[in-house]
């Protein structure tokens, strides 16, 4: 099973764990802190293991993801074995697409380091309701590996 969607009744979004190649961790595995805390509140939070199990990406937002309004997310990369911060990479990017519609966001966003060591991206904007994929791509040397989170944006 590649896609797994589950609905959170307290938020406007349905959250999902994306796991490919059998690398899906059990829910809550690793450091559940920020993602779980956000999910229990009014904001957005989700985590996904990368396709080859190299890292876990936690993406959180203080508020629910809005429709057609800019929003910011925090990204934390975690080593799936040690639970420590994952830093063994050359580059990390974040992007989002609607696969069924074959398009992405109408803007590019950049990740900036924050004081607490996490990464922050501002200005994401989901301009349509429906299924969005958040892509966290980490490049280590010649290779790029993806962690994918699924968002169902509803009215």
């Amino acid at each position, binding site marked *: 099973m*590649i896609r797994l969607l589950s609905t959170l009744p307290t938020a406007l979004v349905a959250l999902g764990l994306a796991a490919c*190649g059998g690398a899906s961790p059990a829910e809550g595995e690793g450091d559940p802190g920020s993602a779980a805390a956000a999910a229990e509140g009014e904001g957005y939070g989700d985590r996904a293991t990368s396709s080859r199990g190299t890292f876990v990406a936690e993406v959180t937002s203080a508020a629910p993801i809005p429709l057609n309004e800019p929003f910011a997310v925090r990204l934390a990369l975690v080593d799936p074995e040690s639970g420590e911060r994952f830093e063994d990479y050359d580059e990390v990017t974040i992007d989002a697409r609607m696969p069924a519609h*074959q398009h992405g966001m109408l803007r590019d966003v950049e990740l900036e380091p924050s004081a607490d060591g996490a990464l922050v991206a501002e200005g994401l904007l989901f301009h349509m309701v429906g299924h969005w994929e958040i*892509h966290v*791509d980490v490049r280590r040397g*010649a290779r790029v590996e993806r962690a994918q989170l699924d968002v169902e944006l509803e009215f």
Partner: protein
Amino acid sequence: MIVGLALAHAALTPMQAQASATEPTHLGAYVRTIEGLARPVAVAFPPADGDSEVHGLHVAVQGALRGEFASPPGVVVVDAAPPSPEDGGADVPVAATIGVGVLERPTGVAVDGSGGVWVTDDLQHALWYFPAGGGAARRIAERGSAGGELVLPADVDVARDPATGNDLVLVADAGNARAQLLDVGATAWASIGVGVVDEPTSASFAPAPDGTLLVAIADGARHRVEVFALDGTHVGGFGDWGGFPSLLSTPTGLASADGNVFVADSENHRIQAFRVDPEDRRVGRLAYRFGVHAIRPGDGAGSLHYPSDVAVAADASVLALTEPLDDRVQLFVRAPGAEPEEDPLRASIGPPAAHFGPPVAASGIYLATVSPESHRVQIHDLRLDEPVRISEAYVYGDRLGMMRGPSAVWLGADGRELLTLDRGNRRLSRAVLDVRPDEPLAQDPELAQHTDAVDLRALTGEPAFVPGAVARIRREEGDLVAVTDRGSERIAFLDDDLQLVRFVACSGHGGDPLPGIGVRGIDGIAATDRGTLLVVDGAGGRVLEVDAEGRALASFGDELSTPSGIAAAGARVWVTDRLRDRVEIYDRADDGTYAHVRGFGGRGLGRAEFHGPRGVAILADGRVVVLDHGNHRGQIFDREGNFVGGFGSRLYTAELR
């Protein structure tokens, strides 16, 4: 030697004949076709101030090195003067042939002021110079990535520097992602376009409005033309990927006249003329365009089919273009008006058939094909007699999950794993497909999840890595992914994490070749059930079996001329032969040798007839799919080679039904 060429002729219209020098005119009125050329890929006219006849059209033909249709690669010179209305349908005599016995796969041609002919050869990674009068040929550049070295050179142009009076030679160095400029007088090379162009398919000098000389480079990966000053300064560029006017789809040829740069817009099947001015913020603005895709197979007389190169005579009286897939050159002359009158019946018609790119892959009941128009990989379900497209993977771009020209595909794990080579980004990408063979047939736009990718140049340390073919080798000691490098004729073996295990030389280019190998023009590959790899030696006309260490185990294919695609299941091997339009079938014996079982084919549109067959793939139930590239269709056969079905557009599949 080619001694005579058939000619198709269209009488000049009264409007053309009455064109006055005072009226605005344009280049683009079809006038004649030179047929019977053996895969013509490039054209050039001599300069105005040269010693050669101004209408002496030099055509680089790739021919076929061996087999029943063997014809020598070289340069054919014909008279391409615009015919008069009473010219009739006279044959076009071959005035000369150049480079026969020296050239192996010419890709570009240019003529200098002394009548000397410059030719690029991508099989040899060479630039050749043939002096006028038949003097000894000189090889100017060798394979490599340093200054003055080339990898897979795609085109050449010559001009005289108006500032110094020196002759200049410009080479599209495709493998090294740059052009190289040789100042013949100073014997100095300079690189142009590094970091700007990804896949230079053509390079040409272009005069600027102020009389200076510019360099234009066509980028097949980014579908643009980039413009530079002679000192290498990037002036700007024009074009982007698409089919609307002014957009480009794999530009492959450039020529200048009338202040315009003419672009062979190959996958849009047209020529576009851009007015180039470095002072204009857009650098190049569309002046006009001509040419539409053929409606019926083989249509010509102004209908175009993958034009690969374009040249304009120095007096700007005639334009020539090559169409290698149709073995012809078409000529166009001047006509009244600033731009061609568009045929209202054809104006809104794009290509009448969806095209398939050369590769094809199969696993379980699923089939993967490539759409050159969309840069996407199409996934088909073949549980019925004909494929049903259920999804598409990748979009155009350079991020993970995006492609700039998918050039090879491999499908495995009963359709759940997709490996794709991306020639523009020089990358191997992997996706998992959420196929559900036990559920009712359904389309799923979200079938593919893009998991990871690897930059093949960075991984291998080979700066001119040009990905060619991909296959996964199943082995008890761990799978390997094999990726061929056309630039160095090597095979990179990767582990399941896409890390490099070894990089095996198949020729003398990338190090000492292993014993028994010596591939020239590596093409398709296929993994066998025994954990070995079958490697198509495209120019050598044979197939090699190698183990995962790269050691040669067997060689076969005496029947083959220009093999391309290959697939294996059990002891049976299928090979396509692109120039012979045939498919050959082999069986492996217990002693490890291969015997020819049967073959079929021939040029045509009927069942088991082909036009440049390329990829071949085998489904789990034994059906075999042959990608009939030039006919824009696929044909399906049973295990014994009996025709069972076809797919593609109606115009090209009517005779199959």
